[in-house]
């Protein structure tokens, strides 16, 4: 009964739900891009071999603050408080991307830092003896090995980010969760609506996991240290 009702509601509101789903994917992808770009740089800068007091304290402070506060609070600060301080007005999409992106940076930093630290120190020594510069050591020796180590954790971060994007409904961004709330208020049938939305999230996260498994299989060959 509930399943057929859910299907009927989803079908009736399909264009809005598709629009919301697209917005969820877009905002997650943009935030992930920010998270990956800065998180990889911060993670490299904070690994055991390259950390330096000049930036180490800043990265650690950033990670502690972001990981120690709820993402919901971060979203509200970026959307409501930041314009007061900076004078720059952000729309819901911009604020959402920045808040989720900044949140993701902290987690990706820790994932990359941990992943690089698991590569044996002998790999750095071998690259040095063979005449690799530090940048080439990272690009050609350390990061390719790190990627396999951190892939499961990175996939966790991607799926967490996708689910956390539902928090942006609080600042009025028309992502799939906000659409669901709106539909539920109109139809007065929250059970059917939220069940349908849950299935959409499940579909998205499962697709990510399937792609990740394929990539993991591709990287499976080689890599063991013994």
């Amino acid at each position, binding site marked *: 009964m509930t399943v057929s009702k859910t299907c009927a509601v989803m079908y009736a509101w399909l264009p809005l739900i598709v629009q919301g789903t697209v917005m969820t994917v877009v905002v997650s992808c943009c935030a992930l891009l920010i998270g990956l770009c800065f998180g990889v740089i911060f993670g490299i800068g904070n690994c055991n071999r390259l950390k330096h007091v000049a930036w180490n304290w800043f990265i650690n402070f950033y990670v502690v603050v972001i990981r120690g506060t709820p993402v919901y609070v971060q979203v509200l600060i970026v959307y409501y408080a930041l314009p007061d301080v900076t004078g720059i007005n952000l729309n819901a999409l911009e604020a959402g991307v920045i808040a989720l992106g900044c949140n993701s940076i902290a987690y990706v930093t820790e994932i990359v830092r941990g992943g690089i630290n698991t590569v044996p120190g*002998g*790999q750095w020594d071998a690259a040095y003896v*063979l*005449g690799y510069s530090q940048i080439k050591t990272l690009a050609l020796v350390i990061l390719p090995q790190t990627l396999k180590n951190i892939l499961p954790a990175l996939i966790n971060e991607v799926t967490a980010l996708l689910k956390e994007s539902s928090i942006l409904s609080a600042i009025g961004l028309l992502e799939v969760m906000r659409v669901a709330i709106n539909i539920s208020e109109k139809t007065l049938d929250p059970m059917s609506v939220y069940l349908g939305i849950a299935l959409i999230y499940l579909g998205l996260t499962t697709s990510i996991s399937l792609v990740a498994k394929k990539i993991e299989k591709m990287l499976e*060959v080689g890599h*063991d240290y013994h």
Partner: protein
Amino acid sequence: MITTKNLTLKFKQATILQNISVTLHKGHITAFIGKSGAGKTSLLKCLANLYHGFSGDALYQGKPLNSLTTQQRVHAVGFVFQQFNLFPHLTVVQNCVQPQVTALGTSQQQAQKKASEVLACLGLSACEHVYPNQLSGGQQQRVAIARALVLEPQVLLFDEPSSALDPQATQALAQVLKDLSKTGITIGLCSHDVVLIKELLDCVYLIDGGTVVDQHYMSDGALCTTSLIGQFLGKLEE
């Protein structure tokens, strides 16, 4: 070829090496022996310029090792690690090609040709396209030697080269080292393997507590069993 003068290495409060003066002569095989923790590997790493914070001199053909450019350094000293440290995400041939392209700027084609030649010399032609984790310990070591040799170093350093090998593979390694020495490559190694030491060496240094306590040139005659080196090797044989 490589000389150290009063080389002293400290980590925080601990003195790892103290006033070490040794010479690796061209085309000779020199061994550093001693108990675990004596400082043999640290000395080899100083000679490979892997440790920088030492005082005293480490010279290659009269020039300080740390003043060499990257290209000069890789042509001067190669290093085969105890754990081999092959790059696990690259195939055997890629392990030998990438350093040439990256460090020396050799073309991919030339690097490939050189890698295949060296791998063939070490009997590894059949393994070119497999990954290091698919090889035995002895094969991995020969790949590590090949990876060092493609850069044509004048000095090749080995850290405990026979520690992961069975007696048969150790014999094969001894032959490889002899052949390399005949081509004029200077070899320095640290080892606990009495068979390898007695069969190969031109010169032995005994290191204890971070200092050289005895040395012996084989050209000076047979090793005296009452010398410190003789006593140390005698204990190892027991």
